[in-house]
């Protein structure tokens, strides 16, 4: 039986007026509608339209967060523009990414990639993290370009490249300057790439990374971390050689 969309008018009015501390029961029927939308394309479209309107108007942060959570469940390419518009907002970027990370449509990744060049600081780190979470290999080059900049962003970029584990990611990490606080992230990411290569049976690529990391840490490591890296590299070398 088709869901009666007209029954959602009052709940959506309540949702628009919602703020933290007010009664959330008034728009509870929307939860049921979201569940029903998984099997009802018309309902999904209607919900996305109404959610999009709420994201674009002056509704509260609480309302927008609720909407983002629901779009993470049922969102499609149709919701991407409304969500993308929030990516540069200090208040809403996080929840917009929360939804876009989970929307399977390639438009969602494109929106995150486009926003990467427009934001700075924590928001940029967030974009890098979301692209890595999506496994978006098309963003490797853009992320690699961040390795030489701000230390926090560079560390996040290294971690993302270690998650993506492509040959390009490994090459970018190999060429990056492993200095200061970024050094640890780069080495961890390189070991992660090597692990990925080994899992795919590319022993030569893995071995090259392990040899390089082993050489970088030296024969006489001084810190606990260096010793742990040496152990990891040596184990990797043995695993990739046999």
């Amino acid at each position, binding site marked *: 039986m088709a869901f009666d969309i007209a029954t959602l008018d009052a709940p959506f009015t309540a949702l628009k007026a919602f703020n933290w501390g007010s009664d959330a029961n008034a728009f509870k029927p929307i939860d049921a509608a979201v569940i029903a939308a998984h099997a009802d394309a018309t309902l999904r479209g209607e919900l996305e339209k109404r959610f999009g309107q709420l994201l674009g108007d002056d509704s509260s942060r609480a309302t927008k967060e609720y909407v983002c959570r629901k779009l993470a469940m049922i969102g499609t390419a149709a919701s991407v523009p409304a969500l993308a518009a929030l990516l540069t907002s200090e208040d809403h970027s996080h929840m917009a990414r929360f939804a876009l990370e989970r929307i399977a449509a390639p438009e969602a990744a494109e929106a995150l990639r486009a926003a990467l060049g427009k934001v700075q600081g924590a928001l940029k780190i967030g974009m890098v993290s979301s692209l890595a979470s999506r496994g978006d290999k098309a963003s490797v080059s853009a992320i690699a370009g961040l390795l030489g900049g701000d230390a926090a962003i560079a560390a996040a970029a290294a971690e993302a490249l270690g998650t993506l584990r492509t040959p390009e990611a490994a090459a970018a990490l190999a060429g990056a300057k492993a200095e200061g606080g970024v050094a640890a992230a780069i080495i961890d990411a390189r070991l992660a790439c090597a692990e990925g290569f080994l899992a795919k049976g590319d022993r030569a690529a893995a071995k090259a990374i392990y040899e390089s990391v082993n050489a970088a840490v030296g024969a006489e490591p001084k810190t606990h971390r260096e010793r742990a890296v040496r152990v990891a590299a040596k*184990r990797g070398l*043995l695993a990739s050689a046999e």
Partner: protein
Amino acid sequence: MFLRRELAAVLVAALSLSAMPGTRAESTPAASREVFDTVVELIRSGDADMRPVAMEKVRKGLKGEAFTRELAEKVLPELKKPEDQAALLAALADRGDPAALPGVVAVAKGQAAPAVLTAAIRGVSALGGADELPLLMSLLAADGAIGEAARGALVAIRASDVSARLVQALGDAQRPSSDRVALVGILAERREAAALPALVTAAVDADAAVRAAAMKALGTLGGPAEVPGLVAGVLASQAGAERGDAERALVLVCTQNRDKESAAAAFLALFQVAEPATREALLPTLARVGGPAVMAIVNGLIASPDAAQRKLGLTALSRWPDATVKDQLLELVGKAADEEERRLLLGGLIRIAPLPDNGLDPAQKLALVEQTMKLCTRDEERSRLLERAAAIRTVETLRYVLPYVDQPALAEPACLSVVELAHHQKLRDGHKDEFVKALDKVLATTKNDEVAERANRYKIGKTWERKKKT
């Protein structure tokens, strides 16, 4: 915190390598040799960080007997550090390739450091078979960890004829008594039914230590088929501690074993066809097993006009395993004209009244304690009863015992009983105020430092660790 997270990330990366499908692919001989050389280099380096990395490869990688032999016969003897030797021996044992055995045996026969020797002994156990038994048995008499490792190795070693060879060794009367005692324990721990006849034979051995060990083993392993052997063991034991332990083993088989009814029936059948002197020796043990048929025998003896027979019956009654005989005991104590007879029966009542599995509920147990207390004529008996009353874990027992703290002659056993009851946290916490007052009274009365320490601990909600009996 950040550093710890980083280290964890690196180590997780390192550890996950061993689970990767890519690492399981077939490798070329040249590649394997390269890895082997690296592993050997890591082992020889003595680097504690790298030791687990190398040993993991010894355990699970580097396939082939040739590598095993090289590790055991070339690398192992050249290592200088005992920790490297012990680690390699343990890894070779886990590798499970018998090709390492000659190298491992050579270390076990040598004069290595104790940690190395114990690792070699475990290696012999993991990789060897019956041919290694003489070596392991020769190490049984060694002190401390080495003797213990040899014992553990003999329990763990697996091969078709190991048990038969151990049984054969046990039968060799020329072996030192300590070795034969150890062999009995080893056979018992191996839990092989084939060893039971050997244990039955050992239960009547000329050596008292071997007999005692065999009876103890049969008490846990034996069943109805071993009852004749256990009975023979009881009869062969010397009066005193050995007899007590032997009787306990037989009673265990007849009351705790999975097939206890059959075992008890077998014991009764043997008793009924035994010579009078043997019946006399066995009756106290049979009484501890209990049952209607035994009760009929006991009652027959008690009714006998022969004083010796009556005493035998009363002794058996006093050892009854549950409280079904309480009324009979109460009546007989009340009527006893002979002081020795009265003490014997009263001892039985004191024993059974608080028994956890005597068939009475806690109120009935306490009522029986009160009845028994009235029949006591000596402080020694009252003391014993007060101490045993603590086995009835109720607040009513506390209320019964507490007034005795005021009686100088009974104060210490009463104090001990109070702290024993307080030891049980649920009981103590359920009646906190009452216990605090009782413990204060104990603290004001007792001269026993341990009882005072316990009372102080329980008062503030702490527990107390009972010292293990040696």
